[in-house]
């Protein structure tokens, strides 16, 4: 690994808060990529005893949800813009949201709405929501996803639960099913995918034992331990130890069933299941299914030890029949999201677990002849909850017609910066190198967390 910074006297800090020695230490740990798992696990177990870890649940609505029909209603706009839905009051005076979100409205003090997300690239892709970065101009190795940064910087909580997991369904339109990857941080930090695509088994393909019983696998593992005789000292890079650690983790996941258990919601009460609502597993058109259950699984995964859980929900590219589809999907989202956030509060996780819900862009103010709305990258909306943020507020404002932000524009990167900040990543100090040795931070220089939320 190439070092970048100049040499200085001992104990002097650089302007990112790290001394060169710290930096080199981090750099040399990074040199083995994700391989130093045993050490990561050790470090984590030393740190985390007796306290809950922090986490992010990133909910992506593929297709570009209509901001003006959800959380930024425009009752004063002409009817060809206003649409069919009325605003309703919430439990925070002065904040109104769409009528299809009555349950959210009752607990608006636990949410913040950003009405002024700007800087959407305009493509139908999860990329910005999953990485924070705009597409293009990628560093060598590619932009890492938010989960990859967290996995790289914070490691794992529980050896049987990967740090970065995703319930992104593979979608007919590929970029909607992309949970981001490890980018230049390496494959080891990419998401561990728990669901597949149309026609695939619902759980991840490789998590389920295929054609082999658990007993036999354990037999084989014992056998492997016996025949695997190479002397460990031949490898200094940690790759062999890494392989052992991952093998044990894979076996742990397959045999300890913690991950599988986290995904098995049958142990939840009927009341809980009803609150989250019954999902629709069908893949319609080229989008994701509407699995409200995955909101519940997201909570369970975090409880089991995941740090970043991402999921995609439905398909929001409503060029026609906007209002009819809204009447189907929005109540499902309302129920699942409000249940998730309520659970986080009930379980005392609201200070540790950040939730974000967003799409790739907004939709045209003007309703088209097919009662649809078209693409509108100029502005869109996002909702945040939990994470120890100050909620019950609206950030930013669009003009009377919902065309553009008139106040406090917020970028995808600022939202990402907020998520990093709340999970405990020091944006100034965190620096990693792409495959050509150029340093990068999780967000571009100068991007700060959203101050209103802190």
């Amino acid at each position, binding site marked *: 690994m190439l070092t970048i910074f100049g040499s200085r*006297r001992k104990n002097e800090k650089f302007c990112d808060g790290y001394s060169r020695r710290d930096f080199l*230490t981090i750099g040399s740990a990074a040199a083995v990529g994700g391989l130093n798992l045993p050490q990561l696990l050790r470090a984590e177990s030393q740190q985390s005893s007796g306290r809950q870890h922090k986490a992010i649940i990133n909910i992506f609505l593929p297709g570009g949800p209509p901001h003006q029909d959800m959380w930024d209603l425009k009752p004063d706009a002409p009817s060809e813009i206003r649409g069919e839905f009325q605003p309703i009051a919430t439990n925070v005076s002065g904040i109104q949201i769409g009528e299809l979100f009555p349950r959210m409205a009752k607990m608006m003090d636990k949410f913040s709405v950003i009405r002024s997300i700007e800087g959407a690239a305009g493509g139908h892709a999860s990329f910005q929501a999953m990485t924070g970065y705009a597409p293009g101009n990628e560093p060598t190795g590619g932009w890492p996803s938010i989960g990859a940064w967290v996995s790289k910087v914070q490691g794992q909580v529980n050896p049987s639960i990967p740090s970065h997991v995703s319930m992104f369904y593979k979608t*007919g339109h590929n970029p909607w099913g992309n949970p981001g990857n490890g980018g230049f941080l390496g494959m*080891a930090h990419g998401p561990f995918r728990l669901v597949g695509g149309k026609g695939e088994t619902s759980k991840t393909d490789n998590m389920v034992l295929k054609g082999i019983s658990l007993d036999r696998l354990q037999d084989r593992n014992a*056998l492997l331990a016996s*025949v695997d005789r190479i002397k460990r000292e031949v490898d200094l890079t940690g790759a062999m130890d890494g*392989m052992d650690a991952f093998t044990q983790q*894979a076996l742990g996941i397959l045999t300890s069933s913690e991950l599988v258990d986290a995904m098995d919601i049958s142990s939840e009460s009927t009341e809980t299941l009803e609150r989250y609502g019954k999902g629709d597993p069908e893949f319609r058109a080229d989008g994701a299914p509407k699995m409200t259950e995955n909101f519940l699984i997201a909570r369970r995964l975090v409880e089991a030890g995941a740090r970043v859980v991402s999921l995609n929900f439905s398909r929001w590219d409503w060029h026609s029949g906007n209002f009819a589809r809204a009447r189907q999907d929005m109540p499902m989202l309302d129920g699942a999201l409000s249940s998730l956030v309520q659970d986080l509060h009930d379980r005392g996780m609201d200070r540790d677990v950040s939730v974000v819900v967003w799409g790739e862009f907004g939709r045209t103010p003007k309703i088209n002849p097919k009662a649809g709305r078209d693409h509108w990258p100029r502005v869109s909306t996002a909702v945040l909850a939990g994470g120890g943020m100050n909620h019950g507020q609206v950030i930013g404002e669009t003009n009377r017609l919902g065309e553009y932000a008139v106040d406090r524009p917020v970028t995808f990167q600022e939202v990402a910066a907020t998520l990093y900040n709340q999970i405990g990543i020091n944006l100034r100090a965190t620096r990693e190198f792409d495959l*050509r040795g150029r340093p990068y931070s999780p967000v571009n220089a100068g991007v700060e967390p959203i101050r209103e939320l802190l």
Partner: protein
Amino acid sequence: MQRCLVRPDGHAWKMRGILILLICAVGKFAPQSLWAQSHDQSFPLVRFQIEVEAVLSKAGCNMGACHGNLNGKGGFKLSLRGQDPGDDYQWLMKEHGSRRLNLFEPAQSLILQKPTSGVSHQGGTRFRTDSLEYSILSRWLQAGAPGPEPNAIRVTGLSVTPEDSVIRQPKDSVQLQVLAKFSDGSTADVTALAVYEPSNLVSEVSHEGLVRRLKNGESTIGVRFLEHQLAIRVAFMPRTSRKRIRFPESSNYVDDLIFAKLDKLGIQPSEITNDSEFIRRAFLDALGILPTGSEAKRFVESEDPEKRSKLIDSLLARPEFSDRWALIWSDLLRNEEKVLDSQGVEVYHQWIRNSFEQGKPLDQFVRELIVATGSTYDVPTANYWRANRAPDVRAETTARTFLGIRLQCAKCHNHPFDRWTQDDYYDWATLFSGINYEEVGKNERSDKFDKNEFIGEQIVRYEFKEEYTNARTKAPATPRFLGDSSLTQPVDRSRLEVLAQWLTSADNRWFVKSQVNRIWYHIMGRGLVEPVDDLRVTNPPVNSALLEALATEFVDAGFDVRHLVRQIMNSTSYQLSSTPNMTNVEDQQNFSRAIVKRLDAEVLLDAQNQAIGVPAKFNGYELGLRAGQIPGVRKVKWRKETPSSGDLFLATFGKPDRMMACECERSNETTLNQAFFLVSDKGIGERMNEEKSQVRQLAESELSDSEVVELIYWKTLSRAPSHAEHLFAVHYLANTERVFAGLSIGDSGRRKNKLAAEAIDGSVRSQDRLSNIQDLTWALLNAKEFVFRH
């Protein structure tokens, strides 16, 4: 009254042994201390473009993470690492009369207050008021902050001594001395103002250039003064009795030079490896496949004293040698379906493979790529330009792939670790500006969102229109080879021919060294320069003499790849064991023992399948094609057809997408997903179960368990099982109860021995013979001895 303690710790090189001075001073008298006077003597002049810029670098002000950032920091911007004194001066002067530069009360200037933490500074304290840095900046301010003069004196070169040192305990440090040469012919000692950057945690360098041991090992120290930089090597070694080193017999110049380095470092190379490891390694490195069980056994049992060199000769003559190099070059030449389409991928791969099959000299290989124009279906090499679609991409890829020069930093600013300026970048890039494309027919791409995707024929043409624009000057660039002075370049197609000649000339040491380094990397598992495509003064080879010798040899041999591979593989150094001894356990870079590395995706999958005797299926290809023979990346898109388990395996184990012309795109990481694959892969389970699987055939054969175990070990690990392993495995195969826990290799026990003895003589045969053999095979395929090259 303000008290201040001034100590000679920071600048002891001038005033060593002097008394600790306690000077109590107030306000503006402070800089006029005795120390400042000593600074006046060591650096009497304070020229903006020399001493002042050097201070801004030395104090780290203009680092990328601080004010050298594209956007500056805290409203103050400097050029990255002081590359542009003119800009720096203008930016500083913009603040003229403001707090940043206070010419009336220099000490109150923010450029002195901030770095000394006189006022709060996010970057912390950079230097103290008694420092050389302070003295230079404050004297510059007192002189009225003069700017860089036109035609001012420049630094023309740098030298650092010692260049290469070995420090043995009990000695723990070495003092560097940095001399700058100026354009007027003078030299000056700039040790105190140079910047030192160690490459690793083996050593640390003091502010004054004293390199200290942190632990034993080798360090490269980058030394920088203004825009000049170079690197020196320091090795910190334990106190060893040098008599004890016994070198094995040297086979050729490769060994002479490696052993010379090891001798200097006091490192004893590992033993020469045994025949099993040798044949396995030789097959994997030369061919990308495993030896079959019988090949391995025959080789190990042969008593021919020249069997190793004979084996190497026979490997070089095998078709898999060309498969392997076609794979390596297909990665580098970005041979993938999205941009080239499958027909392009096929013809391109075939051309690459044929080139290696014919033993085409590597310089000719590269020339053919560079001068290629025409249909990408009819002229396979035209795909080089089809894959690299803009002058800047072509310039970067060509420099990186054929010269080992990473240029891309210089696109936006002068390269921070190399000599390349932005002008160098654009003058080089414009050589590639005449390439154009004619699209034949419509783009049949299936993903309209992917603007890179193109399915259909294209014709690469050379149609010069204008020179590429230099982003710094906004003027047309002047065509110039990298590192060469300005040349008049033709604008017609012959520009490509001139370029190809220059690029591949035997005198072009970048070309020769970078290609030699790549060949070395792919055989030895690690480059003499790492990363393999990053040759620069600040990243010197671990053994420059060896790189030079290999380069000379390569030129003399007419750029014959096989010749060089043969020499490397015949060296004793190639044939060393990976098992370390007391002296080389920490050595990873001097080739004192074999490099251990996870097998590449294709090699690992092919090795598994060869051991089982059943090929994996890849979508779009006939069953039976090895992974290492696949021309492209993804012939059938995953959303069109569910990927086969073979396709998934390759993606999981790091087969690159070929979006970059870089060995670094291929991943040899280990990940959780890989572990899942190895542990629970359905594909391998299915293949083991197939009718023609050798696992099944063994189970159904009349062979005794003992013979089966022998065969499985040879097939998978290319060796015979040890006695203990043999007993253990035979016992496992004979076991019908499947109670296995608690037993391990080497256990003794009457019951186990009895069972084993019965199994060996064939009198007992398990009901579960097939599944037991599958289990044993599975375990050996998952063993690290199998998964890693060692």
